[in-house]
């Protein structure tokens, strides 16, 4: 199990890491509502790929839970589980729970 707040912190840290990797400055304010996919997104599509991989690795390193965030359920969902920081954090919690069960 991963607490929602831990998942949120992982997403934030991962997002900052992705910006660092490409040598760009992250947005001044990042919150649950920060958009990751689609119009107004703070990342391009490749950035989202990097973010997902980074989050998976941080989840594994910090919680010893091996997760695949881009799973069948996520990719066929009507609303993308990667669309905002908050939604992604929720998806991390749910996926980790499924992986642990």
């Amino acid at each position, binding site marked *: 199990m991963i607490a929602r707040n831990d998942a949120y912190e992982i997403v934030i840290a991962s997002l900052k890491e992705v910006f660092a990797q490409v040598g760009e400055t992250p947005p001044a304010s990042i919150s649950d509502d920060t958009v990751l996919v689609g119009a107004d997104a703070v990342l391009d599509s490749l950035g989202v790929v990097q973010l997902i*991989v980074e989050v998976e*690795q941080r989840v*594994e390193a910090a919680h010893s839970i*091996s997760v*695949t965030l881009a799973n069948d359920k996520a990719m066929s969902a009507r609303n993308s589980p990667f669309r905002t920081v908050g939604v992604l954090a929720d998806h991390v919690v749910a996926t980790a729970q499924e992986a642990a069960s």
Partner: protein
Amino acid sequence: MSASEKPVMIVTGARKGIGRYLVEHYLAKGYLVEGCSRGKADISDSSYKHHEVDVADEKGVRGMVADITKRHGRIDAVLNNAAIASMNHVLLTPAKSANRMLEVNVTGTMLVCRDAAKVMIRRKYGRIVNFTTIVAPIALAGEAVYAASKSAVVTFTRILAFELGQWGITCNSFGATPIMTDMIKGVPQDKIDAVVNNLAIKRLGTHQDCANVCDFFISPSSDNITGQVIYLGGVT
């Protein structure tokens, strides 16, 4: 954890044949080798670990890569050698047999590449070699589905090269000529002779031939060699 000092390699289909030879070849070169196959392997070396994993099993591959990452903190090279073949006229090929070939040869290759690449991008370095076959370019009758699955591997690898190139990961394909392994033991000798006689170099392939191409592809100096396919014996 800090990363191992020695380079780490995954070899799929490591239990026997070409995979087994490559395991021993790269152990001798100082690699930490992580092999997998559906069954147990009798390879005994402190630098080798065997994983009983079917490459078509997503959860199994994920678990194997997680275990390797936990112990070594890095993956430098992947040799996707695991494959199944079924020589059969297409009119006599059951869907189950076709699906299984696609599952192991295409999906299995993709899964190992995907999960290993996620680890490789941390160090912005990686070498992936996916095994194909000459029976695709020579259009060998009796191997339609197997050849189709290996053509898919070549196309997958070419595109993978573009998707992963930005992280210093090269992806290439290697197609061997017939080599005396269990995979072709059921193929009639006259069929093998006919294939060999149409090659520029008229002999069976050897395990050493395979190691030679892999050595080239995984060399750190081959950082500008990607999206390529090398066939043995003059096949193009």
